[in-house]
């Protein structure tokens, strides 16, 4: 077991420093790049916080859909192959629900302000 602070806490300290102390000092293209940098750190923190839980639920759904066991990347690859071959489609029980749940978990990390995501979150 590693010591603390945790990776999330460490990353947050860098993001806060850049956002609060450095942002007021620079302008132009460098300011744009700094905003991108801060966005990256925020994304990394969301992923560190959520990935374990969302991957675990994704694996549970994928096992049920595919009837096989494996790592999340292998199971994803297997599902992609089945859809490509026409062995699974939107008529397959649970497939649409699985794709929705997985995609919502990705947006929660990648782009929680994306308008389509916010709309669908309101439906959930």
């Amino acid at each position, binding site marked *: 077991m590693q010591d603390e602070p945790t990776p999330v806490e460490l990353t947050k300290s860098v993001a806060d420093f850049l956002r609060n102390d450095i942002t007021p000092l620079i302008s132009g293209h460098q300011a744009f*790049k700094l905003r991108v940098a801060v966005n990256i750190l925020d994304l990394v923190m969301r992923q560190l916080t959520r990935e374990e839980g969302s991957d675990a639920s994704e694996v549970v759904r994928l096992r049920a859909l595919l009837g096989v066991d494996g790592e999340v990347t292998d199971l994803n690859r297997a599902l992609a192959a089945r859809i490509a071959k026409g062995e699974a489609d939107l008529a397959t029980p649970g497939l649409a629900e699985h794709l929705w749940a997985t995609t919502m978990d990705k947006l929660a990390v990648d782009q929680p302000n994306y308008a*389509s995501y916010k709309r669908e979150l309101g439906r959930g």
Partner: protein
Amino acid sequence: MIEAELSRSAQRWCPGATSVTGAAKLSGGASQETWRFDIAHPDGPIGAILRRSPKGYGAAPTRAAGLAAEAQLMQLAYEAGVPSPRVMHVLTPDEDLGTGFIMQRVEGETIARKILRDDEYAAARPHLARQIGGVLARLHRLPLDKLPELRSRNATQEISEFERDYRSLNWPKPVFELALRWLRDHDPGASAETTLVHGDFRNGNLIIGADGVRAVLDWELAHLGDPMEDLGWVCVNSWRFGEIDKPVGGFGSREELFAGYEAAGRKCDPSRVKFWEVMGTLRWGIMCGGMMQRFREGPDHSMERAMIGRRASETEIDLLRLLAPRGS
């Protein structure tokens, strides 16, 4: 310094031009650059734009029409009354500026979020969807026999091409697979009519002023194909910039777009438009994957590229909203 070469060039084709000032690079990858500058003239400065491939970057990527074709298309569009900058000069090798062309600078805004939110465009916004329909109709009527040589692509060929691009990324995505199946199942085949297709007609590639559309830019993906492709692409959710209930670039409805198109004397096929919207959403998603690959393998390791790679999931949710919508 580029101003010296531009000055020598302008003096050759712009009578009265004395020099060039204020040259500034607006954007540029490795192979293509855009510069703004002013031509000093006794009647007052003339605003101009240079689009060029610097020396040593002559070859265009496979999907691109090439700068010479772009210049020709913009000039044809200008003459046909499509809002477009006037092409002032096509570069020649002895000018030492690379390959490309110089066009009149059209003032206005291209940044989509500003166009959608700033007060300056509030009066124009409600009319833009219909106006865009009219612009596209005129663009699709450009005479085929006057066009430069362009690649020709029907829906079936495009599906195969995108599938190949996607598979080459080795990036298995069940939602993209579903979209590819849907596209194959709904492939409308070759269109009854083949026209010029702009290929990247969207919010972000239009210069907008308080009076509406002033210019159509970025003709590099122009090709021959199904005119409904442009109508589908302009509706892709990625170009609505948050205004998700206004499919046409965040400006207005498909009905307004179609009305503008038909009022200008051309017919719409809404089911083909939907097909191309799905295709376009997948296309942008695969392009995000390409950005990820370029970030990882070079030559561009920038943070911006990395983050665009992470926008593929936006197209996944939009594909699901199109193909497997949930109850409201």
